[in-house]
């Protein structure tokens, strides 16, 4: 990497105790999918999760006509962007038989797969590729990172309900039926790796210029080893080599971006990028362990990653089903409250936790609504879904999965509405991918259709 990567438009982000130069933000805005097409912003897809369900009478709107004027208490924080939101009631989760004793392992792992784990190999990860990873397979090649996975808790919970692999308890993204995608939980790591090294602003070469060539040789060199290994071993080796290949591609993509920016600056060759009118958003790395700040900085990183077209797919496990507490609300462990036995006092606590989570989501999408992109805003081009894998945590039901979508999906979604329909989790995911323009060779999980009422045209 050379000095000419330091460009005029490079922005400085201020954080608490840290000033961050962002060499990768030398140009922001999105890249063309392929040369020659008219510049139209890409559609981005983001998911944010909360476990254990909601208090239904606090979450579902009283009726379609009341959605905009008298939104239910749980989504109050979304009021400024309600006309860009869509709520759909009547989407059921995957029936969990034969895993009736594992509602919490399944609420998360079926959320983006709409598929049950393989009951014959329950101690291994064996489920299905998740919707976010299907999307990443389709659009991931255009960005330096195919997809971004975030969480706020280590994915190391060791409960194994119904003999299911522990991984099901804390993962919702699956790159293949047998590969759970781990999430990043340290905001500083995300910031450093996506946007540059924090302690040496603008000067530290992120990668040795020969790293790509070196990795290429390493991957090629593993071929002989591969031949010597039994089948199971090859599979493990391939997983690793695939991820090394992804790193190599990512470095290539970063290099290309920097080359383009340099040429553009030198006045040689036209820009292939579409500038955004908004400066990159500010990231503050929280110093304490306040839950709202932690959840929010992850939201901000998601916004920044979409704004800078670093990735077009993100999945954010706001909290996993085990052990999250809310000291800011004066509340202990989330799960224990959700078995509220219909006691008003306990239900109020669950409602407060839900509203707290949705307000973090609201923070994220409202930020997106303020970022200009093309003729509209970043949010216009996003499909952001907040949701839970249970409807009622007290009884572990999932007849009407609670979720809310924000963003126009590039004009594909009919927003500003609350509708009631009949469908399942697979239908919903299939619909979202259709809105994003992702061709599917088969429906997602238990899906049988797309939900036309959600879509424009």
């Amino acid at each position, binding site marked *: 990497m050379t000095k000419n990567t330091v460009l005029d438009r490079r922005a400085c982000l201020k954080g608490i105790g840290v000033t961050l130069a962002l060499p990768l933000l030398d140009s922001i805005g999105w890249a063309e999918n392929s040369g020659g097409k008219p510049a139209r912003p890409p559609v981005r897809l983001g998911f944010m999760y909360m476990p254990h369900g909601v208090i239904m009478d606090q979450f579902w709107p009283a009726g379609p006509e009341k959605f905009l004027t008298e939104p239910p208490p749980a989504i109050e924080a979304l009021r400024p962007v309600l006309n860009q939101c869509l709520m759909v009631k009547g989407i059921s989760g995957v029936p969990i*038989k*034969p895993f009736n*004793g594992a509602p919490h392992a399944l609420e998360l792992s079926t959320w983006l797969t709409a598929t049950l784990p393989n*009951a014959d190999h329950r*101690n291994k*990860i064996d489920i299905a590729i998740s919707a976010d990873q299907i999307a990443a397979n389709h659009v991931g090649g255009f960005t330096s*990172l195919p997809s971004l*996975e975030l969480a706020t808790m*280590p994915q*190391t*919970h*060791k*409960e*194994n*309900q119904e003999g299911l*692999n*522990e*991984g099901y308890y*804390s993962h919702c993204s699956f*790159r293949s039926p*047998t590969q*759970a*995608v*781990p*999430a*990043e*939980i340290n905001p500083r790591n*995300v910031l450093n*790796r996506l946007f540059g090294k924090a302690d040496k602003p603008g000067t530290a070469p992120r*990668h*040795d210029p*020969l*790293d790509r*060539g*070196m990795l290429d*040789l*390493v991957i*090629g*060199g*593993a071929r*002989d080893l591969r031949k*010597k*290994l*039994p089948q199971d*071993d090859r599979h*493990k*080796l391939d997983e*690793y*080599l695939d*991820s*090394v290949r*992804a*790193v190599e591609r990512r470095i290539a993509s970063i290099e290309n971006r920097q080359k383009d920016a340099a040429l553009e600056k030198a006045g040689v060759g036209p820009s292939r990028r579409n500038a955004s009118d908004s400066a990159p958003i500010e990231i503050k790395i929280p110093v304490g362990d306040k839950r709202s700040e932690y959840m929010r900085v992850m939201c901000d990183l998601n916004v920044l990653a979409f704004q800078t077209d670093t990735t077009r797919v993100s999945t954010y496990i706001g909290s996993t089903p085990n052990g999250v507490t809310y000291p800011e609300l004066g509340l202990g462990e989330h799960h*224990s409250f959700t*078995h*509220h*036995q219909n006691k008003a006092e*306990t239900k109020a606590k669950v409602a407060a936790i839900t509203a707290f989570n949705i307000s973090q989501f609201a923070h994220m999408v409202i930020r997106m609504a303020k970022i200009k992109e093309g003729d509209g805003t970043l949010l216009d081009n996003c499909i952001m879904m907040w949701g839970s894998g249970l409807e009622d945590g007290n*009884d*572990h039901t999932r007849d009407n999965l609670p979720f809310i979508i924000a963003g126009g999906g590039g004009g594909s979604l009919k927003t500003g509405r609350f509708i009631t329909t009949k469908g399942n989790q697979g239908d919903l995911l299939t619909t979202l991918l259709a809105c994003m323009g992702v061709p599917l060779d088969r429906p997602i999980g238990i899906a049988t259709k797309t939900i036309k009422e959600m879509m424009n045209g």
Partner: protein
Amino acid sequence: MIFLNRILTTSFLVAAVIGLSFGGASIVLAGDEDAVTPGQRAAILKTFRDEVTPFLKAYCTECHGDKNQKKGDVSFASVFGRPGAGEFRRQWQSTLVNVKDHSMPPEDAAKQPADEERRKFVEWIPKVKYLNPKDPGAFVIRRLNKTEYGNTLRDLLGVDPSVARELPDEVPGEGYLNTLSPLQTEQYLLIANEALNRALGPGDGPATDRWKQLFGAPPASGADPRAAAKNAARSLTRSAYRRPATDEEIEVLLSVFDLARENKLDHPASLRLMLKAILVSPQFLFITPAKEPPANQSIAPLDDYQLASRLSYFLWSTMPDAELSALADRGKLNDPAILRAQVKRMLLDKRSQALFDGFGAQWLGISGLREKRFDPAKFPEMTPALRTAMYDEARLFFDSIIRENRGILDFINGDHTFVNESLAKIYGLQEKISGPQMRRVRIKDANRGGILSMPATLAMTSFPERTSPVKRGAWVLEQLLGEHIPPAPPNVPALEKQDKNKIANLTLRQRTELHRTNSVCANCHKIMDPIGFGLENFDAIGRWRVKDESGGDIDARGELPGGKKFSSPKELKAIIAGRKDDLARNLAEKLLAYALCRQLEGYDQIVVDRLLENLGKDDDRMQTLITEVVTSYPFTHRRIK
């Protein structure tokens, strides 16, 4: 934080192995694990078809016959085609116990087997293990976990293992560990850069000692730099790949060296890029075999290099040292006497502390203690320093039992422990102990001593603000005795949500006993809770007390199924210690699973039984247990196909 990729989830319900009998004639198994001939195996299978299957269908499958609705977690729906399969192991064990003591079929069942039928059925079950052909299991290549990776960089480059701290923590379980997101794989590249910077410095000065140690002396002027690079590649890979590299592997590294030279890097910088390539190679990050397996075999002994690595990562969580590597080079490790001597040497080395961080802490369930939060208003003394002292106490205690080669019952009965000033206060020790240094003390109070009454385990099985007799009971049953407790059914309120007025004046024990008024709960809680009551004299951070939070007197009396009664922690400990066979089996199984990095299967039961037999002959000593694991068939062999 320590998290492991190793698997620690096995447990059998315990069953004494009943003498084998085939058609009436008793066969005593000789020392050879292969004592069962194909003919005998066929006989066991025939009995299964002719006698066991009709029994199951007559008395069991009406309730336990649905594949999806497993009543009491037991179903015989798919057992008929393959009674020996690993997934039925635990179920056979509980079936044996329940049918033998007439708990099953239940009293109100329509039909009861005749005594003779019951006897034959019960006698057959222990033979299930002989249905599986001898099998060491697969030894699938595996990526080093975070701890192992950090330690290996330390031993290879002399850097602090914390260089790996930004890697994600890992959860035990198959299929998970080997998945990395691209961001995390990139982390390996960044860590390799960082480790090289720390080990080698900027690299533009004269060669340092570390440099010479890694790459050899700089080539003399006029010498062929590529030949020097080739020598360096050979010696670096011998350590980093933990086996000799193949010629092809050396060529790959030389092509990296060439790439650097073509891009005008000088000789040292080119060698450095080559070392970086080694550090991101799968041969470094995975434990890989040295040789292609023989084409015509399905099972092969591990080659010496693989065995050295398996042993070293088991006991030390790091790469083999010079002595172990030299033995591997000389092909000596397949000699059981040499292997035993190495185990002894390695256990006495301080690196064997890794066995506690990796295995012991997981077995005792205290891996998360340093991160566990307690109510600061109720327990202001529970500082990070005190939590660390508690963890260290357990570590030093575990370590002393291994190092002094004590019997496993000392885990329950041990009369010594390790404390510093703040921990001595938790124990209420009278003698003067000052400062943060941990030191060994003798325990005179018989209610104390051993892991049942150790602050680390007591605190870990408590809630942030109070004790949990249920958690403590479950911990003893699952972690120590290897029993399986099904999770609580949904819709059961935890204690907090009981009617406040009704419980206002009850002690925690009395409230907990409400579990047993509900028949859904009673089944498990009548076993779990009494054990926890026996430990109620210890508060949520392990201090002795005579009154609980409600001000009521502690009642530490209890009775276990089978009529064993106790009235103090001391008597409870004696009862647990009386279940030595269960303790030993559970510990042996967990340790074997950890060593093999896989769950145990049906074919492993013969191995475990033999191991326990040998262990018993040597007073259940810890070093013997570990040596038996290392010299066992599945540890020293692998299935190839």
